[in-house]
C-alpha cells in the first residue's frame, strides 16, 4: 500500500501542531533552568535571523535527546552570536554557535565565498577568529598573524605581524610545527610562537604590545597550544612530551606579560602547586609529593606531562581544567611507578594556580595516551540529578564524564575500538590493562595494540550542541605494533624510546565522525571515513555539524540524523577547526583552513594522501554570495566583463 507522505492537511494538521506545541512546552519545562532561551524556544518554528519566515515542515521530534546542557550565563566567555573570539568559542569549550541561517534545509547550497592563502605549508590546526568585522588568523611556524578586513570585498589584509620565531624550534617539534589557536581579549590578540614565546598584539594595529619567553627551546620544549585568557591572565602550556621536557602551565599577566605563577605536571607539591586545598577524589592520588615518589629518583624532571591541549574554565566554581601529556620517555620500563601527574587532568584555581583536584587517566602510561584532549564543561543528568561535569574523549579510547567540582569519575565508556584495556576498575577508576598489550619489558614487538599512540581521539576538539544534547566526535580507528627501546636523555633531542609501525583498525576506515550521547554513553549515529577525521568539529543553532577529513573533504551533516547534507573537496587535508560567524552583511559564514599536517601525517603513505597547503576557505549560502561586479572598484568591473565570470546570473 502506498502511503500518502504529503504533510497532513486541514484538521489533521492543526491537531499535529497543537500536539507538537504541548510536547515542546513539556520539554521546555523539563530543561535546565540555566538554559531557558534556546531549549524552550527551539521546538516549534523559531524565527531564523535573516530569512524572516518560520521553518515549515514536520517539527523536530524532541529537541534535546539526552538532557545534557551547556552552562550559560555571564562569565562563561560566550561572545556575541556573530562573533568568535576564543578557540573553542566559550570557556566551556562547546564549539557551538547559535547562528541558524544555515540549517539542514539549505546547507546543501553552501559554496565558496572567498579564500585566503597564508603562504605557509605546514599543518594548519587552530580556529579563525572574528570580532568587529575582522578575521584573525595565525599561521603555523613562522606564526605570522593576519587580520583580514571583512567589510571589504575579498577580505583584504588589514595588517600582518611577524614574530620571527627561531627556526631551531622546528627541530624540536615532534608532530609538525602547528599552532593550535589564538584568542582575542581586551583589544589584543594573544597567541604562542613555536619557539616558546607568548605574544600580545594590538588587534587594531597589529603592533606588538608585549612578548615574553615562557619556555627554552634548547631543552627541547616548544609551544603549540592555544592560550586561554581568564580573569586577566594568559594561560600558556608547553609541548615536548617526546623531548623529555618538564610539563607545566604558566600564567602571564594580560597587560604586561609578566609571569605570575607556574604549575608543573610532575615534581614535588611545591612545583605542582598542590596545597591544603587539594582534594583528589581517589585515594591513590592522595599523599605528599606523589609527583616525585611515583617515579625513579629524579625521573620526574624529564617526565613530560606537557600541557599542549586546550584549557577550559568554569567561572562559577572558579576552576580551570586542562590535561597533561604522555609520560616521558615512552619506554615505560625506564620509569617504574604510577608516574603522577602525567596523562591526567588538573582542576586549578586560576588566581594562584593551586590545584583543587586531579585525575590520572592512564597511570604508568605505556602507550603514549596523553590526557590533553579538551575538557568540555556541560551539565548532565546522572541518576535523576543534574551534575556539573566535564567530558573528555581520552586518547585511551574511554569517554570520561567527571564531576568538575570534585573529580569523581561518573562514567568511563569506550567510544571507539580499543583492545589495550578490558575496562575501568569501578573503585579506583584505573584502567584494567590487558597483559598482552603491555609494552614492558622492552626490546620485543607487541603487536596490534589498539588504539595506536595517537589514540581513539587526539587533540582535535569536539563540539557539543545544547539543542540536541549530543557530542560530535572524531573517532580514530588505528592500531600499532610497538617495541620499547632503551633511551638516554640528551637535552634537546628526543627522549622517546619507542619503535612503532601503525596500521588501520578493524573495518578498514581510519576515521569516523559520530554523535555521542554522554548520558547513556552510546553512539547515536556514525559516518565512517576512509581517511582520518583530524579536524575540529562545529555545531550550530541550525542543527548542522561541520567536520573535515584528512583527504580534504569538508562536510556539513544533519546534527540529529547524521545525514550528510553537503561536501566540498578542499585544496588540502583539513586538520584545523571550522567556525562560523556573521559577516557585515548580516549573513552567516563558515570558515575553515585546509592544510594537512600535524599528527595526521602518520597516515601519509595512504594512496591519495593530499599534499600540504595553507588555504582559508569561507563558505556561505549560495543565495548570499554576491558577485563582485555589484560593488564596483577601479578596474574590477572591466576585469569581470572580460573574464565573463559571475556577472550574469539569471536569478539576480
Amino acid at each position, binding site marked *: 500500500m502506498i502511503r500518502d507522505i504529503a504533510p497532513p492537511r486541514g484538521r489533521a494538521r492543526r491537531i499535529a501542531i497543537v500536539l507538537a506545541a504541548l510536547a515542546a512546552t513539556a520539554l521546555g519545562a523539563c530543561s535546565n533552568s540555566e538554559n531557558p532561551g534556546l531549549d524552550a524556544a527551539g521546538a516549534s518554528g523559531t524565527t531564523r535571523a535573516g530569512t524572516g519566515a518560520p521553518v515549515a515542515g514536520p517539527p523536530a521530534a524532541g529537541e534535546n535527546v539526552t538532557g545534557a546542557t551547556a552552562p550559560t550565563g555571564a562569565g562563561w566567555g560566550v561572545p556575541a552570536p556573530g562573533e568568535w573570539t576564543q578557540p573553542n568559542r566559550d570557556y566551556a569549550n562547546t564549539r557551538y554557535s547559535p547562528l541558524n541561517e544555515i540549517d539542514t534545509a539549505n546547507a546543501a547550497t553552501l559554496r565558496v565565498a572567498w579564500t585566503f592563502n597564508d603562504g605557509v605549508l605546514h599543518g594548519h590546526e587552530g580556529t579563525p577568529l572574528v570580532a568587529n568585522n575582522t578575521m584573525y588568523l595565525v599561521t603555523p611556524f613562522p606564526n605570522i598573524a593576519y587580520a583580514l578586513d571583512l567589510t571589504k570585498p575579498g577580505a583584504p589584509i588589514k595588517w600582518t605581524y611577524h614574530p620571527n620565531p627561531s627556526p631551531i624550534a622546528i*627541530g624540536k617539534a615532534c*608532530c609538525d610545527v602547528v599552532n593550535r589557536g589564538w584568542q582575542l581579549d581586551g583589544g589584543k590578540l594573544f597567541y604562542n610562537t613555536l619557539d616558546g614565546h607568548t605574544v600580545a598584539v594590538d588587534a587594531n594595529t597589529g603592533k606588538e604590545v608585549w612578548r615574553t619567553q615562557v619556555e627554552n627551546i634548547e631543552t627541547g620544549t616548544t609551544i603549540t597550544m592555544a592560550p586561554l585568557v581568564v580573569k586577566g591572565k594568559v594561560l600558556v602550556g608547553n609541548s615536548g612530551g*617526546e623531548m623529555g621536557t618538564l610539563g607545566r602551565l604558566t600564567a602571564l599577566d594580560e597587560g604586561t606579560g609578566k609571569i605570575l605563577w607556574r604549575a608543573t605536571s610532575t615534581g614535588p607539591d611545591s612545583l605542582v602547586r598542590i596545597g591544603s586545598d587539594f582534594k583528589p577524589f581517589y585515594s591513590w592520588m592522595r599523599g605528599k609529593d606523589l609527583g616525585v615518589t611515583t617515579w625513579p629518583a629524579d625521573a620526574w624532571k624529564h617526565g613530560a606531562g606537557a600541557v599542549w591541549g586546550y584549557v577550559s574554565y568554569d567561572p562559577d566554581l572558579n576552576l580551570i581544567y586542562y590535561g597533561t601529556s604522555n609520560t616521558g620517555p615512552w619506554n615505560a620500563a625506564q620509569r617504574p611507578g604510577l608516574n603522577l601527574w602525567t596523562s591526567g587532568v588538573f582542576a586549578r584555581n586560576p588566581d594562584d594556580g593551586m590545584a583543587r583536584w586531579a585525575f590520572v587517566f592512564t597511570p604508568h602510561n605505556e602507550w603514549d595516551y596523553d590526557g590533553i584532549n579538551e575538557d568540555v564543561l556541560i551539565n548532565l543528568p546522572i541518576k535523576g540529578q543534574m551534575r556539573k561535569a566535564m567530558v573528555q574523549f581520552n586518547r585511551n579510547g574511554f569517554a570520561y564524564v567527571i564531576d568538575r567540582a570534585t573529580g569523581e569519575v561518573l562514567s568511563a565508556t569506550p567510544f571507539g575500538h580499543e583492545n589495550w584495556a578490558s575496562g575501568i576498575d569501578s573503585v579506583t577508576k584505573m584502567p584494567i590493562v590487558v597483559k598482552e598489550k603491555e609494552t614492558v619489558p622492552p626490546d620485543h614487538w607487541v603487536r596490534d595494540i589498539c588504539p595506536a599512540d595517537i589514540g581513539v581521539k587526539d587533540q582535535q576538539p569536539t563540539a557539543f550542541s545544547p539543542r540536541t544534547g549530543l557530542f560530535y566526535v572524531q573517532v580514530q580507528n588505528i592500531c600499532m605494533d610497538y617495541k620499547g*627501546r632503551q633511551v638516554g636523555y640528551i637535552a634537546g633531542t628526543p627522549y622517546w624510546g619507542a619503535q612503532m609501525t601503525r596500521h588501520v583498525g578493524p573495518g578498514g576506515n581510519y576515521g569516523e565522525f559520530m554523535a555521542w550521547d554522554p548520558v547513556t554513553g552510546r553512539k547515536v549515529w556514525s559516518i565512517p571515513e576512509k581517511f582520518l577525521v583530524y579536524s575540529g568539529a562545529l555545531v550550530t543553532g541550525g542543527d548542522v555539524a561541520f567536520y573535515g577529513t584528512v583527504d580534504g573533504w569538508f562536510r556539513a551533516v544533519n546534527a540529529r540524523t547524521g545525514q550528510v547534507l553537503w561536501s566540498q573537496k578542499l585544496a588540502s587535508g583539513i586538520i584545523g577547526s571550522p567556525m562560523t560567524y556573521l559577516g557585515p552583511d548580516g549573513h552567516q559564514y563558515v570558515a575553515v583552513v585546509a592544510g594537512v599536517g600535524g599528527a595526521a601525517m602518520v597516515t601519509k603513505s595512504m594512496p591519495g594522501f593530499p599534499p*600540504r597547503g595553507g588555504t582559508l576557505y569561507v563558505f556561505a549560502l549560495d543565495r548570499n554570495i554576491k558577485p563582485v561586479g555589484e560593488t564596483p572598484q577601479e578596474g574590477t568591473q572591466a576585469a569581470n566583463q572580460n573574464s565573463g565570470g559571475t556577472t550574469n546570473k539569471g536569478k539576480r
Partner: protein
Amino acid sequence: MTRRANIGRALATCATLATVAIAACRGAPEQVRGGAQVTALPADSTLASVPLGDLAGATPNRLATTITNPYANNQGAITEGKQLFAQMNCVGCHGYDAKGGMGPDLTDAYWRYGGAPAEIYKSIFEGRPQGMPAWGSAVPHDQIWKIVAYIQSLGGTFPAHMAEAGLQGNLGDLDTTAASTLKGRQNDQ
C-alpha cells in the same frame, strides 16, 4: 721402557703444557690495541673550509669532493655507527630505520645541506638550522665518521667525488647501487 720412565715422561709433558699455557695467557694482551684504529681522519681545518653553499663567482666547489670517509665500507665501523645512531638519539628524529619522522629521511637522495660524506659530517658536527643539533662536542670525530659510514650504507648519500654533481642537482649521474633506488624515488619535502 720402565714404568718410572713412563711416569717421568708424563709429568714432564704436563709441566711443559702448563708452562706454555701460562706463558700464552701473559703474552697476548700486549699486542692488542683498542678499536678500529684508523690511519688518518680528515683534518678539522680542511673540513672547516668546505662551504655550505656554492662559492661566489661561479667557482667550482671542489673541496668536498676530495674528502672521503676513511670508514666507508668498513663493516665494523658501520655496525658501530648504527649503534651510535640509536644511542645518540638520532633515531628519535630520523627514525629507527632512518626513514625520517621529526627529521628528514636519510635514505633518500634529497640532502638539503649536501649529501657527500664531508657535508654530512659537517651537518652532524655543526648542527643545522631548523633543528639539527650540533654534535661536535658530545661525539668525538672518530665516532661521527662512523655514523656517516652507517648513513652511507643506507644508499642515499653521494660518493665524495660526486659532491659537485649533487650541488648542481644532477641526481641522475649517481650510480644506482642495490642499496640505492634513487631513480623514480619520490622525495617527501
